[in-house]
């Protein structure tokens, strides 16, 4: 899954450079272990909620790769029929009810999905994916409190990549202590290496088990780094001198290379990796072909879907 996200996003980056894709694309290259590790611990009927940087969340939760590529191309075959673009992905059957770029907007919605599961008496779990920047917003703190207060089955996954656009974490808060918000609001908080897919998976399993069994919400602060710029494929080296050094350091901790080493050490042959990679590349190439060949939305449908029918969906 990590490799699928990587290859997909590298392709999107190249197509942005080639001006074939116009919609703003926020790439999660370098952060793939988080969606992969978290979603591996979820069921199809659990929900995930994301933001502007959600290609990985969508794929890891089971979203259709072709439909996302077509959406990014703005085509009628896209998951939002060309109305959304990269920042608005949706796949309700997979528990992805919408990702949106307003920072922190979906954190309370995940809490609501958890409340809904509780009221409906299901054992579904909701996961909120958000960045370190989102913890600057009141939504984050209010949501943690609500979730703890009503003991809701939600997992808050903070993908702490130490940047909110051009601003480092240090420029936005006095302490590097996002996880401490959990204890203050009375829920469990765990800090983990977001580039180690095994740790992410194990922490997710535990948090999901707790949520599902009624033991309450968890905040997982996954520490990671985005290799590309805030938006688009460039590296954003102009944000500060630190960035070059950090980038080198974090690239040595590539989540995919680390996972590959671990598997090789356990005897998985490199042929198998190569086969896997070739399959993924073929799948992504097919998706590009599919997106290119797909028709654009029809102008006459501009006003469709402003409302759903009175009965809802």
């Amino acid at each position, binding site marked *: 899954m990590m490799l699928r996200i990587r290859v997909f996003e590298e392709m999107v980056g190249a197509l942005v450079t080639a001006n074939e894709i116009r919609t703003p694309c926020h790439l999660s290259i370098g952060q793939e272990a988080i969606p992969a590790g978290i979603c591996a611990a979820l069921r199809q009927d659990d929900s995930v909620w994301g933001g502007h940087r959600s290609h990985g969340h969508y794929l890891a939760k089971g979203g259709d790769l072709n439909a996302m590529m077509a959406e990014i191309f703005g085509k009628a075959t896209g998951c939002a029929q*060309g*109305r959304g673009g990269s920042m608005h992905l949706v796949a309700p059957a997979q528990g992805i009810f919408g990702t949106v770029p307003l920072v922190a907007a979906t954190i309370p919605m995940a809490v609501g999905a958890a409340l809904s599961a509780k009221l409906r008496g299901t054992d579904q779990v909701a996961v909120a994916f958000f960045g370190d920047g989102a913890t600057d917003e009141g939504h984050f703190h209010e949501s943690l409190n609500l979730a703890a207060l009503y003991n809701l089955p939600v997992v808050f996954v903070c993908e702490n990549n130490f940047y*909110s656009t051009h601003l480092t974490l240090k420029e936005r808060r006095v302490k590097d202590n996002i996880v401490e918000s959990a204890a203050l609001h009375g829920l469990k908080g765990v800090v983990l290496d977001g580039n180690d897919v095994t740790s992410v998976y194990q922490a997710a399993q535990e948090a999901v088990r707790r949520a599902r069994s009624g033991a309450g919400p968890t905040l997982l602060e996954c520490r990671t780094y985005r290799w590309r710029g805030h938006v688009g494929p460039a590296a954003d080296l102009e944000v500060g001198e630190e960035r070059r050094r950090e980038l080198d350091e974090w690239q040595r901790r590539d989540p995919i290379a680390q996972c590959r080493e671990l598997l090789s050490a356990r005897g998985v042959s490199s042929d198998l990796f190569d086969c896997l990679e070739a399959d993924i590349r073929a799948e992504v190439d097919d998706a590009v072909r599919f997106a290119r060949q797909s028709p654009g939305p029809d102008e006459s449908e501009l006003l469709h879907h402003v409302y759903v029918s009175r009965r809802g969906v």
Partner: protein
Amino acid sequence: MRQLTYAKAIREAHAQLLAADPRVFLIGQGVRNPWYAGTSLQDLDKEFGKDRVIDSPVSENATTGAAIGAAITGMRPIVFHPRMDFMLLAADPIMNQAANWSYLFAGQVSVPVVIRAVINRGGEQGAQHSQAVQALFAHVPGLKVVMPATPHDAKGLLIAAVQDGNPVLYIDDRWLYEVEGDVPDGLYEVPIGSAAIRRSGKDVTLVATSYMAAEAAKAVEMLAQRGIDVELIDLRSIKPWDRNLVYSSVGKTGRLVIADAAWMSGGIAAEIAASVVGEIFHALKAPIARVCLPDAPAPTSFVLEQAYYVGAEQIVFAVEKVLL
């Protein structure tokens, strides 16, 4: 006179205000990042220091609320929201607080804050990075709302907004940033509430806001070639708006087209149309036409964007319609 771009004119207003008045400071997200602000705030942090040019966390509600608190206690803050959509997270401090305090406390407390929101749409950014919700704010008593369309007014209205004792929402449009025009050197004010006649004409009155005023200027040229003589009014302020100028123009032409690049329902154009009908109904020779956005969120796909946004072409069409 010296020419500046719209973005540079905004920058110059900030720089001169910061230099002239120690009460002025700037706070908001991305104030030192061209991706957010274009050149409209370029290097102000270097010139005036990070204490007065504050690039904030992603905390629209707290930064706006804090600016209001600072304004109440003697400062003249300018809050920067790089997109109007993000500013909606600060609806409470703006609409419930800043707008009300003078009235609530019988004029004993004032809130001289400027809240700057950028409209930045198109480019396949979609529904949450494209909104132009000026009408929501113009609806609220206690707020003033300005929307400059030229470099001259971009500078003069920002200065007027900072000098005003009331909360002013200053809305600029990213699509105008590269427009060039005459800009006087020093500090000068464009009075809030006064519109400008950009071209006198006798056949139709065309009232336009912000970006649509620029589009309207193009439309007026096209129409002139067809022998249609349009009077173009750039509204500049949408709350309060220049009723007298609009009424006297419509009194002369008897026909009115209003162009505002925001949703039609409940918008500024509706307010102007209702006022004209209510006050000078007998002057009208034809129904009023509005050129606005369709009542749908901004789509992403380029194809749909093309169908969604309005400009000179739609204005020409509307003017011809009211002349039929």
